């Protein structure tokens, strides 16, 4: 072999091995084949790499919320807050983020089908549906729409196409709507405005867990914040079960199931006496006496009197039962709370008629529908995401569906009901469709497609051919318009035209055309000119329809860009008049036999089951128990002892209607005579790959509606027996107590209300945390720290976590999953401690309080993780970030061991996103492979982007070194943007006027593990409690935050024994105290 041959062989060998290496391992290093091609014709407003935002609204009905869809390179990658929308605070509802993941679910129906055979839209599905509807109408049979709550144009369109609209959700608002009909004569939902409340009294509604929409969570946080008005809203919860919302309550009254209505009426009676209110509302309350109510509820009469006293002191609002209060008097409970609000003076400021007006059906209506179906009176059944087959197993809905001529699923995802439908016409979802919603009277949200239906070109693993998968979906509105055209009831050409026409008629006319027209009419009437005006030919001038007005296009586009429209109906107080009377049932106790009552609770994230197939909802730990991917039964410790069960034992819960076997979770959050079980799970459907086989369907236990037709979820007696088996339920929580390590800190609410977060002389002086004082000899020479504190020229990014505002909902965590491409690891991997969430919401029980403490990377100034990394994969950046270089990480995991907050997450495997979940990945954030550490980055991609934007915008004449202002930073990270309570605030600690700098001076400021001297960039604000004693006043300056003596011990409210004279002799006392803690050598 000569030199030339050798080199040839070498070249060939190297090339061949390099090539084969590329194709080696598809599973681990699979990279989709991509073409980097420029746009031939660049779409307007789209710059590759720069996101476009589309105003839209997410989720339907009363929960509709204005948000922005963040669009990158042809697809929606995130949902952001709409800062301009009125009536709601800028935030991202958890459901909006779950809808985002649902949008990319691999299980979505890919196109219309008849049975399992694919159809076309124009030549198959739509003609078939039209024919079926026409046939049904001609045969005198009903065409029925069964769907989730929808409002606005869709309802109007439906009414012109189908014979009967049944909008129903299992844990919906049927009791509230029926009660409104009973008391006020109209079927609607009242509107609650919690922002101005100083007392919030819930009879079971999980107001901080999604009941009434995210708006109420935001409003409660405002009510809770004393800055400005010096009022902290006190929250009392009257319910047998303490869920995540109730865990935030200041007072929890664990009443017997069903007795909430008696308590509500008794309170209302007492309040009416105190306020001297008279009117039909008092009469409607009927006869109730406090002692009877108290004994039925199992609480003291004094407690009812205390509630009434609080309520009568003004600015109080009562909330109905929600899903948990849906006992055998669900509707009456709602009616009682309405009356309580009226007699308590909550109307019309806190409680008014300006709520949701769209149809809300009762569960009784579903039963009637089943009867009609069985009787063969239903010709066509259209199903839109409603799932009674799963949610109401006793209803016989599945069997009845077989007796309907044509069943059509508009649902975009498979579920038990949709799978039984003969014709599947998957509808475009909220990101692909036009639409509008009216969650409040006068407040309408407008939706436009934020992306075209997914069209995925990819190369399956190991295949050479590219495969195109198109999600061939069409808007439900579009289909209905076409059917309506065939029936002759709809004239609009398309669903979009229909929407525009209606907006022209309903909104544009009132907004733009009506004022000049009214003026002209008044002028005409004054001058005696004819009205309507006549043309030259003497005939009255016919105005074109409003949507054909020349100004309409621009006006409508503006509404689309905003995503909402508000008129003065939304601002005008809507006073309600009591017109009806209420028949109070004598027996409110749960029905059936058994010694316990089952409380059926919608799952905190999965809800009534609609997000069961959404991995984010399953993987996010339950706020109270930390359980993921499961169903469980919560049992009181006393009951558990009686049954002889421990955590994770299996029990059988049996009611007259059915039984389920599930895992025991022992908690003090239920009454001893109740067992709480999560709804929404227990799907057994292979086409729901993530929900399939997870948990049990607790709805099997329930049956029967109350006297007014609302579902009595919590009205069933059950027996609980130990099966002897064990379950493999998975939870993420460690200890329940913070072991007095200052993770969970309380301040006295009254003291906090008086001071607010105004800069205190001694930051943190309300918390009672004892700070050791730095030796005076060191402070004198300016040496307060052994190591130099890192210098930050312009920025040191930091965050403030308000643990009083945080209610534990978990929206931040899901927003983080979406923004930072966090993988979902699944049930088995969570069991092994492999969950990847960068934000962990620690739940601590301390004294009377439940604390939710979001923990993420604290971006320490003296980060223990940085110094131990052997390869500099993590380091402190100039703007104060604890930066992480994934490429450099070798995976020693030493940083995680060193991190006192356990904030770091390790990639144990390379996780894959099943297509098309990968289409949701944020292109600004790299996905990590196995073996590297990761953690919260404060959304560094957003920080870099906004810093660049401000630099780009600055010119030399303005300020070349433009610093991003506080307002632009405050909600910058995905978690802070999403938080409905604004518990998370981001900012620049180098800016003395920024919010994060100011909150550090607050009297309730604290740093978890401050004594480790890690100089963390995240400060926490303590939770306000009405149950702890006041912190002692500071005595004189000069202590530098040194001697905030613990006025409270462990939040239990026990005051430390301090002698009265110690204020005078503070020097000596302070010294003794500080040295006592430091080791006693002075």
């Amino acid at each position, binding site marked *: 072999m000569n030199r030339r041959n050798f080199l040839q062989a070498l070249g060939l060998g190297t090339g061949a091995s390099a090539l084969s290496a590329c194709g080696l391992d598809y599973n681990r290093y699979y990279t989709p084949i991509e073409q980097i091609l420029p746009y031939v014709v660049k779409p307007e407003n789209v710059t590759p790499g720069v996101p476009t935002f589309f105003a839209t609204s997410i989720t339907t009905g009363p929960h509709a919320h204005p948000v922005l869809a963040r669009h990158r390179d042809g697809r929606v990658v995130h949902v952001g807050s709409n800062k301009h929308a009125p009536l709601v605070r800028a935030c991202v509802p958890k459901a909006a983020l779950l809808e985002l993941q649902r949008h990319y679910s691999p299980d979505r129906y890919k196109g219309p089908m008849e049975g399992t055979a694919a159809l076309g839209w124009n030549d198959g599905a739509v003609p078939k549906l039209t024919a079926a509807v026409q046939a049904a109408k001609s045969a005198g049979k009903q065409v029925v729409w069964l769907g989730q709550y929808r409002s606005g144009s869709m309802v109007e369109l439906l009414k012109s196409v189908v014979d009967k609209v049944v909008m129903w959700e299992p844990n919906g608002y049927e009791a509230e709507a029926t009660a409104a009909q009973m008391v006020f004569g109209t079927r609607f939902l009242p509107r609650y405005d919690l922002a101005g409340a100083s007392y919030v009294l819930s009879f079971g509604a999980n107001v901080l867990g999604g009941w009434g929409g995210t708006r109420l969570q935001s409003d409660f946080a405002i009510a809770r914040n004393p800055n400005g008005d010096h009022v902290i809203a006190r929250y009392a919860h009257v319910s047998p079960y303490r869920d995540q919302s109730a865990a935030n309550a200041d007072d929890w009254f664990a009443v017997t199931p069903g007795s909430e209505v008696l308590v509500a009426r008794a309170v209302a009676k007492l309040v009416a006496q105190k306020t001297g209110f008279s009117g039909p509302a008092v009469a409607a309350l009927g006869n109730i006496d406090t002692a009877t109510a108290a004994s039925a509820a199992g609480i003291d009469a004094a407690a009812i009197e205390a509630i009434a006293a609080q309520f009568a002191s003004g600015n109080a609002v009562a909330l109905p039962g929600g899903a948990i209060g849906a006992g055998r008097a669900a509707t009456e409970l709602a009616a009682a709370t309405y009356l309580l609000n009226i007699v308590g003076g909550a109307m019309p400021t806190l409680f008014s008629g300006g709520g949701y007006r769209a149809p809300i059906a009762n569960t009784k209506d579903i039963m009637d529908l089943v009867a009609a179906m069985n009787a063969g009176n239903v010709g066509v059944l259209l199903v839109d995401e409603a799932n009674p087959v799963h949610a109401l197993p006793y209803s016989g809905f599945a069997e009845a569906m077989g007796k309907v001529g044509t069943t059509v699923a508009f649902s975009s995802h498979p579920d038990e009901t949709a799978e039984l439908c003969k014709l599947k016409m998957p509808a475009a979802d909220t990101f692909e469709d036009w639409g509008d919603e009216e969650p409040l009277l006068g407040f309408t949200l407008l939706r436009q497609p934020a992306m075209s239906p997914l069209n995925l070109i990819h190369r399956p693993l190991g295949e050479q051919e590219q495969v195109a998968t198109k999600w061939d979906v069409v808007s439900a509105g579009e289909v209905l318009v076409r059917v309506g055209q065939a029936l002759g009831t709809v004239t609009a050409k398309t669903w979009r035209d229909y929407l525009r026409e209606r907006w022209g008629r309903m909104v544009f006319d009132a907004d733009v055309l009506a004022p000049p027209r009214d003026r002209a009419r008044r002028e005409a009437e004054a001058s005696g000119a004819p009205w309507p005006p006549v043309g030259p030919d003497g005939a009255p001038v016919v105005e074109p329809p409003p949507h054909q007005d020349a100004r309409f296009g621009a006006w409508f586009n503006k509404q689309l860009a905003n995503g909402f429209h508000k008129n003065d109906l939304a601002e005008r107080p809507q006073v309600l008049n009591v017109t009806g009377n209420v028949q109070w049932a004598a027996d409110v106790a749960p029905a059936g036999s058994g010694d316990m009552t089952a409380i059926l609770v919608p799952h905190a994230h999965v809800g009534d089951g609609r997000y069961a197939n959404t991995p984010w909802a399953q993987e996010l730990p339950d706020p109270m128990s930390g359980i993921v991917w499961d169903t469980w039964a919560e049992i009181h410790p006393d009951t558990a002892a009686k049954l002889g069960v421990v955590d994770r034992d299996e029990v059988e819960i049996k009611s007259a209607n059915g039984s389920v076997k599930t895992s025991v979770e022992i908690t003090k959050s239920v009454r001893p005579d109740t067992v709480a079980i999560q709804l929404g799970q227990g799907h057994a459907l292979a086409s729901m790959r993530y929900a399939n086989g997870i948990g049990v369907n607790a709805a099997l236990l329930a049956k029967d509606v109350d006297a007014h037709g609302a579902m009595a979820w919590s009205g069933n007696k059950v027996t609980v027996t130990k099966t002897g088996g064990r379950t493999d339920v998975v939870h993420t929580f460690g200890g329940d107590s913070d072991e007095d*390590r200052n993770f969970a800190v309380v301040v006295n609410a009254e003291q906090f209300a008086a001071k607010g977060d105004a800069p205190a002389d001694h930051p943190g002086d309300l918390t009672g945390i004892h700070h050791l004082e730095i030796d005076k000899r060191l402070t004198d020479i300016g040496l307060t720290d052994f190591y130099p504190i890192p210098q930050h020229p312009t920025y040191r990014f930091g965050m403030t976590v308000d643990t009083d505002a945080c209610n534990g909902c978990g929206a931040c965590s899901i927003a983080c999953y979406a923004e930072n491409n966090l993988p979902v690891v699944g049930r088995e991997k969570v069991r092994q401690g492999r969950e990847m969430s960068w934000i962990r919401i620690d739940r601590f029980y301390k004294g009377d309080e439940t604390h939710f403490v979001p923990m993420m990377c604290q971006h320490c100034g003296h980060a223990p993780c940085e110094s131990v990394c*052997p390869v*500099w994969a993590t380091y402190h950046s100039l703007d104060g970030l604890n930066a992480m270089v994934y490429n450099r990480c*070798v995976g020693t995991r030493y940083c995680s061991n060193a991190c006192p907050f*356990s904030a770091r997450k390790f990639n144990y495997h390379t996780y894959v996103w099943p297509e098309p979940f990968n289409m949701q990945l944020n292109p600004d954030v790299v996905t990590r492979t196995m073996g590297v550490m990761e953690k919260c980055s404060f959304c560094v991609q957003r920080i870099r982007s906004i810093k660049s934007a401000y630099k780009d915008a600055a010119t030399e004449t303005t300020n070349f070194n433009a610093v991003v202002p506080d307002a632009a930073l405050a909600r910058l990270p995905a978690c802070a943007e999403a938080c409905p309570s604004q518990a998370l605030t981001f900012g620049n600690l180098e800016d003395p006027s920024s919010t994060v700098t100011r909150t550090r001076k607050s009297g309730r400021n604290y740093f978890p593990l401050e004594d480790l001297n890690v100089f963390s960039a995240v400060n926490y604000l303590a939770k306000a409690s009405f149950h702890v004693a006041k912190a002692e006043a500071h005595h004189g300056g000069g202590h530098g935050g040194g001697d905030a003596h613990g006025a409270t011990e462990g939040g239990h409210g026990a005051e430390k024994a301090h002698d009265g004279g110690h204020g005078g002799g503070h020097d000596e006392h302070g010294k003794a105290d500080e040295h006592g803690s430091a080791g006693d050598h002075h």
Partner: protein
Amino acid sequence: MKDVYSTGEPNRPESYGAANRDIIRVLLKPSAAYFAMLFVAVSMMLFGVWCEYQQIRWGMGVANIKHPTMWGVYIVTFVFWVGIGHAGTLISAILYLVRSRWRTGVYRASEAMTVFAVMTALLFPVLHLGRMWQNYWFFPYPNQRQLWMNFKSPLMWDVFAISTYFTVSAIFFYVGLVPDIAIFRDHSKGLVKKVYGLLSLGWRGTHRQWHHYMAAYGFFAALAAPLVLSVHSVVSWDFAMANTAGWHSTIFPPYFVAGAIFSGCAMVITLLMPLTYAFNWHAYVNIWHFDALAKMCLLTSAILTYAYGMEYFIGWYSQNPYEQAIFFWRADPWADYGWAFYIMVFCNCVAPLPWYFQKLRTNPWALFIISIFINIGMWFERFNIIVSSLAHNFDPATWDYYWPSWIEWGILIGSTGWFFTWFLLFVKTFPAIAITEIKEMIPPPLKGSLEAK
């Protein structure tokens, strides 16, 4: 020959020739029992290799390390083997410098144990990495990306401390071997003779060679001696330098060094006891040696017991809530790792106590069994320190229970197989007893003696 159960120095063989024959006898055709042991060792090693393949293929997730316990069996076993690797150099270098006579019989085998134990230990820092294929990033190699290591990190200190220790102990080991390999060369034929010839570096035993040799040996002994103390101090800083409660303690360096010598001496007993009987080395190694090793163990066990007690005293005295919590929790017999703590205390503090009685200190069975207890106890000491401190970290909401997966056990078993494979190959190919040093103890052959004939 004196009774092997006596505690005095054994009777030496009568002649240099007898010494040569006794040691070379070991190299004869191995028995079936030897092959069986080698087969077991190699199988264990291969099982470990397969487990490690799984880990490289699927990621660290096949191990059970989990938040917040990010170090588990791998680092425990790493520290265990580094500790084992301390006795050899201690015996060969420090005892050489202080002219302790009893080292002669046991030092070669202990040195071999040291080198192989360090080789075993060195596996773990690599295979515990999330991306073990990037392990070269630990070394200061020139690169265009201007990447450099963080010399503040105790892991970096480890890299240098252990590689230095390995290099020096391997060279010291080899230097000691050279005259003995020459003897093997002189007693073998053919290819084997050539190999030993190469390895003996032309050793002829001239006066001049001996002169240089003794100077070099003394020099390496002096160089190795401080390393005995420094290596495990540096390893202890992996823990002591992190702020984790239960790790963050100034007592760690002496405590770890004492523990290392304790475990190392126990391991020498564990290894040499069967060899002495298998190869009938009673003329070279007898109870006198084991008695000395047992006394070393007793001293270091006492130091450890003191250190354990002192940890609790400081935990209480400092009033540091985190430190108190972790130590008191560790000692709670009903807590997650209480059993591990009491295994440690029993094996390290209680089990060696019988050795205070000379009768038990000179009983081969008592020596062997107690040394096994100590080996187990010292593994659990590291398990206690590493695992329980992490499992109950600062944030109570993250507390979790770690128990190794079978992959982790597999790699632990594999590492033991790797160690014993080397050790078994060594005893059959190299002199496991220092022939030349033994000869120093025999009266020089005079004219007319056996050797001269």
